[in-house]
């Protein structure tokens, strides 16, 4: 009788611990204090191949690391440099954990943004950042699959000095290659860093 009770107790404890591990993960690490929208279970992230200055790069090359993915363009006057510098500051705040994060910016203006220009642009924020470009079709497919809209701003007319309207959401991809979190445009670097710490701790 006593033995059966102990076995039952042990089994329940084991199950309880397992459940607590999953269920309590959010509570333990303060998921209520997250700034972005955590997506649990994560959504499938479409793998893609685009071009860096060093050649083709696949998203799946970064399995095992957390990817911070942003779509923008180098002629972008406001939101892109702001977002990229915030991501750079956030990674700086992570110190050695920053090695576990790869920031990638994909150009939604491939006509003007060559892979070389992208590399130069992103590396001015952080030498480890990766800038990607591709053909108009490739970029359009990748952007759409990440819920990103972009279009030449109507007010720009036909001049070469046009602006591009685009979704400025940042997508955080888990080391397993799934969409784990969405950051709204106006997140501050401390908020990004705090979310990343949470994700890296899991």
């Amino acid at each position, binding site marked *: 009788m006593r033995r059966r009770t102990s076995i039952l107790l042990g089994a329940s404890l084991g199950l309880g611990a397992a459940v607590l591990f999953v269920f309590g993960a959010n509570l333990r690490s303060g998921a209520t204090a997250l700034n972005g929208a955590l997506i649990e279970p994560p959504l499938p992230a479409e793998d893609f191949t685009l071009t860096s200055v060093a050649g083709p790069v696949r998203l799946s090359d970064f399995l095992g690391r957390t990817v911070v993915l942003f779509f923008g363009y180098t002629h972008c006057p406001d939101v892109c440099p702001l977002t990229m510098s915030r991501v750079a500051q956030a990674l700086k705040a992570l110190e050695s954990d920053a090695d576990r994060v790869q920031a990638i910016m994909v150009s939604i203006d491939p006509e003007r943004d060559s892979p070389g220009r992208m590399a130069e642009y992103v590396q001015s924020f952080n030498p480890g950042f990766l800038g990607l470009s591709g053909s108009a079709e490739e970029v359009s497919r990748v952007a*759409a699959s990440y819920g990103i809209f972009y279009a030449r701003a109507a007010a720009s007319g036909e001049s070469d000095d046009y602006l591009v309207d685009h*979704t400025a959401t940042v997508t955080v991809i888990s080391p397993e290659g799934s*969409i784990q979190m969405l950051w709204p445009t106006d997140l501050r670097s401390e908020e990004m860093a705090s979310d990343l710490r949470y994700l890296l701790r899991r």
Partner: protein
Amino acid sequence: MTPKKRRVLRITLGIAVAVITLTPLGFAVLQPVKVLPRISLAPGFQLTDASGQRLTSDDLKGSIVLYTFTYSACGDRCAEQTRFMRETQERLAEVESGGMPVRLVTVSFDPERDSPSALRDAAAKAGADPRVWSFATGESTSLKALIGGGFNVYYEPGEEGDFSFETVYVLVDPLGIKRVVYRYQTPAHESVIRDVEGLAREARAEGMAHLAYEAAHLFSCYSTPY
């Protein structure tokens, strides 16, 4: 340790274990909060609506959106689809969304004939309230990628200006994540209203309530039979 202390310890431990194990079990069985599963990100897009204005996926972020895909020249063949959208529009008045905007979007895959004025006619004929229900279309290659690729809805131009296509309704949450795809048959209004209200409640939840919804995503997702 005296036997009495041991018993107290055992009882306390038992209660703790029961709470820990029964909470998720309770979630699974009683389903105190139900959530619609997150399917995948809805595609990003730029379309032109019936007033000739740009309608983008960004404009619809923060709203719950029900999409459907058709063409205006479809006429009577699409009467059920149009009626379903109109009735949904009417039923939205009774939805308790707590201020969360709910929008309907009919996307035409026939941009050649569906100019803004044709869309305006179609919208008027359908009884669309332009504040709630938008009609829009785009450029044909990007439409194929958007509707066929992004929303996974089949359509193919036929010989005499008609299209063969499947009637699908897609419900997207305020974050831009696909939550329900009603395929194969027209859904009951009750299901759609229930799903919209569920999404609105989930989007409004904060703090512990938000965590309860997040827990529900792990333990008690339900899906509609479409």
